[in-house]
């Protein structure tokens, strides 16, 4: 591959969704065409992300200077291992959600530009993963947020708007803090290029101010990734939109916040700064605990899952707070497994809703008897999420705990194991109420479900089956996946690789 090909490959995850969105906008009143384009876009995006991933794996970190400007001055896109993994995840997500949307999103929402917005959202997410420029990151965040605002409120039901208001307010505050932090950082160092920042932040005399900026970033990304005590927007909003949107948000959006946290706190700010590490660990502990306790109190399928996202983000942030190469690797593996599993659980909740017409655990029941295959899909994901061996979730939790033991952080490790137990409790709760207990009465909706043609049912199940297969593959090849995570962790722990790739070895 020539340099031009590789540059094009790094750009494609951003350009393709935009191009598809434009095509869909031109055909804004032809829904059938949009659905087909959406499937094409999902598939092509997935293939591109796989090719990008393998290229980065073979050729190492790739840098693209947009517009041909000299490097610290223009915007750069940087694809290192971590970016490549995340883009792969977003490709996977886009692929599965594209298929899932066909059956679950109703016509009214489709008419309100659902598909173009989905593509723009993916563009924003991919942009955030690939950019190597602080201000550009802010822009991608906005692209992502604006489209997610609309997707969240699509349908305009009362509870949706209530959730969306909280989501919009907190996320706008977060963007404001982020922008101020970027401004101060620019004032201190005179650069916005992340690699250049990594070098120049060390040279700033006023290190106190640098810590302040670091905390501002922590608050800002903390809101976006829903950590304690700023997570309230997530459980308020994630259970309200169309379920395909929920699944995409649950899998991908909060993880963008976590990704930027990893990026900023490993690259720009000193990872040996004990203060930052301790703060992150404390936040992580509270996040894990409050998330899982919140889930235990809920009675709605999707709300339980939403609270679990909070709890799980705690683990990822904990792995960051431990600040060793091994813990980063564990955290990355955790992010990957979490994205896949959580999305699949939301997919299944959507299937259950399609069958029974409700997400309320009190009125659900009897699914195991009638739909053993759906129950099996749920069981695998639930086991994975709560960390039962031999599923991927076990290896993820095990390695995070191991990373903690290695540097003798027993308190947080103990807490994380305890939270794992509670996770199992609330998964059992869903299982008991929705699947195991006897059916109370056959709902109107269920008789409707019998009438759905068999092809459409398969179309409804297939994304979930696909994700389950991915989970099983990840569980089976956990060793090789973790080897790659270790490589990535090394790259994060030694920012010199990244800096040299961008600025050239000096």
């Amino acid at each position, binding site marked *: 591959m020539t340099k031009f090909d590789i*540059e094009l490959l790094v750009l494609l995850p951003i350009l393709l969704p*935009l191009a598809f969105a*434009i095509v869909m*906008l*031109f055909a*804004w009143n032809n829904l059938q065409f949009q659905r087909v384009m959406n499937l094409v876009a999902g598939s092509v995006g997935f293939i591109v992300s796989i090719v990008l991933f393998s290229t980065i794996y073979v050729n190492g970190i790739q840098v693209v200077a947009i517009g*041909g400007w000299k490097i610290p001055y223009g915007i750069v896109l940087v694809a290192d291992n971590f970016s490549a993994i995340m883009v792969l995840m977003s490709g996977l997500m886009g692929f599965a959600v594209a298929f899932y949307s066909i059956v679950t999103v109703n016509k009214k929402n489709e008419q309100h530009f659902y598909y173009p917005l989905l593509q723009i959202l993916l563009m924003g997410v991919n942009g955030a993963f690939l950019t190597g420029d602080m201000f550009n990151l802010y822009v991608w965040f906005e692209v992502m947020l604006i489209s997610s605002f609309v997707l969240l409120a699509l349908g305009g039901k009362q509870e949706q708007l209530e959730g969306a208001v909280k989501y919009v307010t907190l996320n706008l505050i977060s963007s404001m803090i982020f922008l101020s932090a970027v401004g101060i950082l620019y004032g201190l160092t005179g650069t916005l290029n992340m690699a250049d920042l990594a070098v120049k932040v060390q040279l700033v005399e006023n290190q106190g101010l640098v810590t302040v900026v670091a905390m501002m970033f922590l608050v800002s990304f903390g809101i976006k990734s829903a950590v304690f005590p700023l997570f309230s927007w997530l459980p308020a909003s994630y259970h309200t939109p169309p379920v395909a949107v929920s699944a995409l948000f649950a899998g991908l959006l909060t993880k963008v916040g976590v990704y930027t946290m990893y990026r900023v706190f490993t690259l720009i700010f000193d990872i040996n700064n004990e203060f930052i590490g301790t703060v992150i660990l404390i936040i992580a502990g509270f996040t894990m605990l409050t998330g899982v306790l919140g889930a235990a109190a809920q009675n709605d399928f999707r709300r339980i899952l939403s609270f679990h996202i909070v709890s799980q983000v705690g683990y990822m942030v904990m792995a960051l707070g431990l600040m060793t190469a091994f813990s980063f690797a564990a955290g990355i593996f955790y992010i990957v497994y979490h994205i896949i599993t959580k999305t699949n659980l939301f997919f299944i909740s959507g299937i259950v809703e399609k069958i029974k017409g409700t997400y309320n655990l009190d009125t659900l029941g009897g699914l195991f008897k009638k739909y053993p295959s759906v129950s099996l899909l749920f069981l695998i994901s639930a086991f994975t999420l709560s960390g039962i061996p031999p599923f991927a979730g076990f290896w993820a939790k095990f390695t995070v705990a191991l990373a903690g033991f290695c540097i003798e952080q027993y308190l947080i490790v103990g807490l994380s194991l305890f939270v794992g137990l509670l996770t199992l409790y609330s998964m059992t709760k869903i299982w008991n109420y929705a699947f195991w207990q006897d059916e109370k009465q056959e709902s109107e909706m269920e008789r409707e479900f019998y009438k759905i043609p068999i092809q459409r049912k398969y179309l409804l199940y297939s994304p979930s089956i696909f994700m389950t297969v991915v989970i099983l593959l990840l569980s089976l090849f956990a060793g090789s996946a973790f080897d790659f995570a270790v490589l990535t962790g090394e790259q994060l722990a030694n920012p010199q690789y990244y800096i040299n790739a961008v600025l050239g070895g000096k």
Partner: protein
Amino acid sequence: MKSIILQTATRYLLPILLLFSFFLLFRGHNSPGGGFVGGLVAAAAYALYSIAFGVEEAKKLLRIEPVYLIATGLMFALISGMIAFFSFDTFMTGKWSDFNFPLFGKLGSPLLFDLGVYVVVIGITLKILFTISEEVKP
């Protein structure tokens, strides 16, 4: 609300405002102005027209659905970035014509980008305007 004074004034103001928006668009490369401001001024001209003559008339004047404007503008912007691919340069590298056009000077891909922004801004603003005024109708 129909006011003859406003309607007559709008008939004269509309072309002037549109011309002014083009002026802003073209001078934007090196001086204050550009696609965004130009687009806003052009959209404001249509907004004025819709206040004077009603939304239906404004839609008739525009002829096409604003969504097409949004799509077209985004397409211009995307193409302007991809022009550089023909000479195997990175995305968004500026490409300029070799000879001077009368009045404009050298034309290049950044102008196409600005034109895209101009069209998107008109499209979005009018889409919002039309949607809101539809809601107001009893």
